[in-house]
């Protein structure tokens, strides 16, 4: 009875139906099968955060989730947050603040920071650092990324 299972879920707002082998992570499924290549595999052990996606609205390490676990649920990757032509406030602020060097950690970082931007707009610096501790960046030292998030929070609150 080892066999494929049905996977029906919402990916970046669109319904997706698939028959899949269950022995794969959500990270591999999203990158290799669904083509959302913004999902990066870094450590594959839940430490680095490069594979961060929103599962039912909260950031998770997709390398620790088995693909069939998301049946009936909702997944948003960095692709679902904004487009080059229409970036979300955090994406726009990353460009403005040169918050990118090699770029590998950036999709996961954007997912986490966009979640903070949306749900914890009043977060202190210490709280921001604590919440982004699951997104490792070996290039930037995090400073520009924190500045970008704070600029995004400021620009959004001005518009509100």
């Amino acid at each position, binding site marked *: 009875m080892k066999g494929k299972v049905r996977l029906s879920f919402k990916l970046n707002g669109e319904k997706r139906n698939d028959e899949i082998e269950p022995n794969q992570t959500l*990270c591999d499924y999203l990158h290799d099968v669904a083509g959302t*290549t913004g999902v990066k595999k870094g450590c594959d052990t839940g430490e680095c955060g490069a594979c961060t996606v929103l599962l039912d609205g909260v950031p998770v390490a997709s390398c620790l989730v*088995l693909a069939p676990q998301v049946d009936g649920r909702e997944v948003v990757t960095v692709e679902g947050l904004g487009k080059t032509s229409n970036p979300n406030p955090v994406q726009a602020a990353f460009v403005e603040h040169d918050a990118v060097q090699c770029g590998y950690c950036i999709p996961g970082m954007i997912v986490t920071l966009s979640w903070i931007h949306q749900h914890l707009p009043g977060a202190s610096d210490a709280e921001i650092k604590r919440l982004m501790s699951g997104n490792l960046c070996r290039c930037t030292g995090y400073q520009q990324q924190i500045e970008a998030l704070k600029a995004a929070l400021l620009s959004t609150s001005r518009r509100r």
Partner: protein
Amino acid sequence: MKSFQYLAPIPRFDYLAPKTLPELFDILEDRGREAAVIAGGTDLTIALKEGTASPKAVVDLRHLRNELGGISLDRGTLRIGAMATFSEIEASLTVGRYANALRQAAANVGTLQIRSIATLGGNLATASPAADSAPPLIALGANVTVLNKSGKKSLPIQDIFAGPKRSALQSGEIVASVEIPAAEGVWSAWTRAAVRNENVLSAVSVAVAAKVRHGKFEASRIALGAVAPTPMLAETASKAMTGTRATAEQAEKVAILAAEDAKPISDIRASARYRKHLVQVLTRRLITQMLLEVQVP
């Protein structure tokens, strides 16, 4: 392009997601030891990749959140469902009020991306000696409810830990919930030492729960993590603290006894000697904090 694989590919397994508890227990009975239960998956998925678990069937609890999740307060008991995530526990005001030590530990488990999915029941079932949820639960005198096909049983939380990464769960059993006595006026806190502040396993963790009344420590319990094959109650220290005067001198004496209670090993995270030192420092720190926070007339 196919993602690279650091680790061996995950071997094939049957994947089952029962819709009801009876269906779950039928599956677990049928598959016996070849079944592995998955809740959040933050431990099992890594074990599958590393080959330390190779189940023939993976049984997903995701349809059983109503039966196995939730946080509620009922007649003096705080009940936390096994599928409550650490993020939910961290955010719960009720947990903060009656089990502050557990809320603090929950907020320090892994990272945001792990706390979002990792569950309390999974932390207990994995039975790591460093499980951060355990010392607070032991200090607070919690019980764990275990379910199987024929019914349920309640155990003191320590008894779910049989050895390093070995739970006392039998084949066909799952953790259903944790029950914490929710008494007014119980002060509790948790702290830990590790090689960095975030995203790291504890080298040592300590939880203290006690009351201070009429200038004395009452019903005091000190529990330790990562200093023995299982999380443990520091028995000598807890007994020595209960009923004595609530003073800084007494805090120091109790801290020394707690270090003597600890039975650590040396490993990559800390040496045995350093762990004992940390138990003493962290225990004293927590009790001193309690003396500052509670009113000692």
